[in-house]
C-alpha cells in the first residue's frame, strides 16, 4: 500500500485558518473602514472645536466641553424627551394593532394568504415616500384624514402645524409602516405554540380572552420581545419620516435627537460638537443592542 492512499491527499490547498482569514478579510476591512474607523475618529473630533467647512483652520482641543455643552443644553434634553414620546407613541400603536391583527389572522378563512400578503404592503414602501404620502393625507385643508374625520363631525385638526399633533401624525405614519413587521413576528410566535395547549385551555372552560391573555400572549413573549427591541432601536433613530412630514417644525419642536444631530452636523457644520452628539447616540444604541444580544443569547440557551 502506498503512502498517498492511506492518508487522504490534500495537495495544493489552503490550510483552513488561511481560508477563513481570506474569506472574512473583505468584510472586516469594510466594517473597519465604515464603523470602527469612524467611531475612533468621532471620539477624536469630539474633543475639538472644528468645522469641516473650514479645513484650513487648525482645530483647537477643547477637552470635554463639547459633551458638557450638550449635556447641559436644555434644548438637547428636550429633543431626547420628544424622541422618547415619539418612540412610546409609535410602539404602542404598532404592538396593540399588530398583535390584534395577528390574532385575527390566526383563524382559517378563505383568502387568508392573499389578505395576509396585502396586510404586509406598507412595509414595502420607501420611507421617504411614506412620509410624503402621509404629509399629503394629513394636510389640514385638503387632506384625506381631516375630510374623513369631518364626516364624523369632528372639527379639522392642524396635524402638522402643532407639535403635539405632529408627534401623533408621524407616529401614525411610522406605525402604519411597521405594524406589518409586528404582525409577521407575532404570527410566527402564535404558530410556535402547540395547538393542544390552547385547546386544553378551552376544554378547561377558559374564555377566548382568558386563553389569549394568559396562555397565547405569555407563550409568545420571547419573540414579541425580539420584535419590540428591534422596533425600539429603529423608532429611536427614525429620521426619514420627520424630514418628509414636518422638517422638524414648527420651529424645532418635532426634531428627534437624530434630527437635531443632522442639523448640527450638516446644517451648521459644527463638526466637533456634532461628533460628541454622535458618540452619545452611538453609545445609547450600542447599549440597547447589547441588551438585544444578551436577550437573544439567553433565549437560545433556553430553547
Amino acid at each position, binding site marked *: 500500500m502506498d503512502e498517498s492512499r492511506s492518508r487522504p491527499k490534500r495537495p495544493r490547498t489552503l490550510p483552513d485558518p488561511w481560508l477563513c482569514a481570506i474569506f472574512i478579510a473583505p*468584510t*472586516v476591512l469594510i466594517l473597519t473602514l465604515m464603523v470602527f474607523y469612524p467611531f475612533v475618529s468621532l471620539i477624536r473630533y469630539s474633543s475639538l472645536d472644528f468645522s469641516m467647512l473650514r479645513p484650513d483652520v487648525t482645530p483647537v482641543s477643547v477637552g470635554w466641553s463639547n459633551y458638557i455643552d450638550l449635556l447641559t443644553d436644555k434644548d438637547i434634553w428636550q429633543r431626547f424627551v420628544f424622541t422618547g414620546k415619539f418612540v412610546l407613541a409609535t410602539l404602542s400603536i404598532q404592538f396593540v394593532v399588530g398583535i390584534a391583527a395577528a390574532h385575527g389572522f390566526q383563524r382559517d378563512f378563505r383568502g387568508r394568504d392573499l389578505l395576509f400578503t396585502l396586510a404586509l404592503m406598507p412595509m414595502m414602501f420607501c420611507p421617504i415616500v411614506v412620509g410624503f*404620502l402621509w404629509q399629503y393625507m394629513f394636510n389640514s385643508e385638503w387632506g384625506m384624514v381631516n375630510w374623513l374625520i369631518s364626516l364624523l363631525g369632528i372639527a379639522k385638526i392642524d396635524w402638522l402645524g402643532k407639535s403635539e399633533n405632529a408627534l401623533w401624525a408621524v407616529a401614525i405614519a411610522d406605525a402604519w409602516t411597521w405594524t406589518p413587521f409586528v404582525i409577521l413576528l407575532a404570527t410566527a410566535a402564535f404558530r410556535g405554540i402547540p395547538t393542544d395547549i390552547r385547546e386544553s385551555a378551552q376544554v378547561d372552560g377558559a374564555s377566548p380572552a382568558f386563553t389569549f391573555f394568559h396562555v397565547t400572549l405569555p407563550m409568545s413573549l420571547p419573540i414579541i420581545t425580539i420584535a419590540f427591541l428591534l422596533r425600539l432601536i429603529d423608532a429611536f433613530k427614525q429620521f426619514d419620516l420627520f*424630514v418628509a412630514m414636518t422638517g422638524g417644525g414648527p420651529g424645532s419642536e418635532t426634531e428627534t435627537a437624530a434630527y437635531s444631530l443632522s442639523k448640527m452636523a450638516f446644517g451648521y457644520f459644527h463638526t466637533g460638537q456634532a461628533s460628541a452628539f454622535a458618540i452619545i447616540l452611538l453609545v445609547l444604541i450600542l447599549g440597547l443592542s447589547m441588551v438585544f444580544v444578551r436577550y437573544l443569547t439567553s433565549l437560545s440557551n433556553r430553547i
Partner: protein
Amino acid sequence: MRRSPLSLAALVVGAYLVLSDGPVIWLILSSLKSRQDLFTLPPKVLFHPVWTGYQAVFGIGAASTTAIAVGLYESLVTSILVSVLGTFFAVALGTLAGYATSRFRFPGHGDFMFFVLSTRMIPPVAVLVFYLVMYSRLGLIDTKVGLILVTTFINLGLATWIMKGFFDGVPTEVENIALVNGYSRLNAFWRLVLPMVRGGIAATAGFCFIFAWNEFSFASILAATTAKPLPVKISAAMGATGMEWTQIFAAGVVLVVPVAIFFFLIRRYLLIGMTFGVLGKRSG
C-alpha cells in the same frame, strides 16, 4: 357553550386591512391625478387619469423635460445601478464571511458577530458626521462609487448574519466527506456547499436589494446634488408651485413594484430577513 366570535376576528382583520391598504390605494390613485384633482374635496375617486408623473419618472415625452422633472429618470438609473451593484458586493462578501463564521471558531468570534450585528443598529446620521469628512477627503461625495460602497456596507452585516444561518443549516459532514475524497476545502465550498444554499443566497440578495433600493438617509447626505438616487431626488421635488405630488406618488409606485415582487419571491424567508436571521427556518 362559549364560542370565540368569528365576527370579532373578521372585524379586526377587516379594519386593519382598510387602514393598511387604504393609503396604498390612495397613493396609486393620487399618482394618476392632475393638479386640480389632487386637492378637491370630497376626494375624487373617479377622475380623468394623467400619466405625467410616470412619464417624468421614465423620461418619456414632454412631461419629462419640465424643469422639475429633469434628472428624475437619471436618478432612477442611478438607483438601479447602485442597488444592484451594492447588493452584489454585499451578498458576495457576506457569503464568504458567513461561511467562515459558520465553519470556523477564531479568537473574538462572538465579538465579531456582535460588531457585525451592530451595523444594523447604528443610526445613519451618527456615522454620517464622519462619512462626510471622509468622503470629501477621498473625493467620493456625489459619486456612484461612493454610493455603492455605502450600500455594500449597510447590507454587509445583514448578508453575513443571514448567510451564516444558512451555512449552519448545512451539515459539516458534507465537507468532511469531500475532504476525505480528495477535494480541497475551497472546492468543497464552491462545488458542494454553495449549491446547497442557493435559495438562501437568493433570499439574501432579495433583502439586500430591498434595503438598498429604499435607502434614503445615507444617500441624502452623501449624494445631495449630482448622483441622487430616486428617493433622494423626489425628496427635493419642490416646484415653483409647491410639491410635485403627482411625480412623488408616481415615483413611489415605481419604487414599490420591485420590492413587492421580491417580497413575493422570498416570502418563505421574510422572518429570517426581517430579524437579521434570528428567527425563521433556514433551509437553503
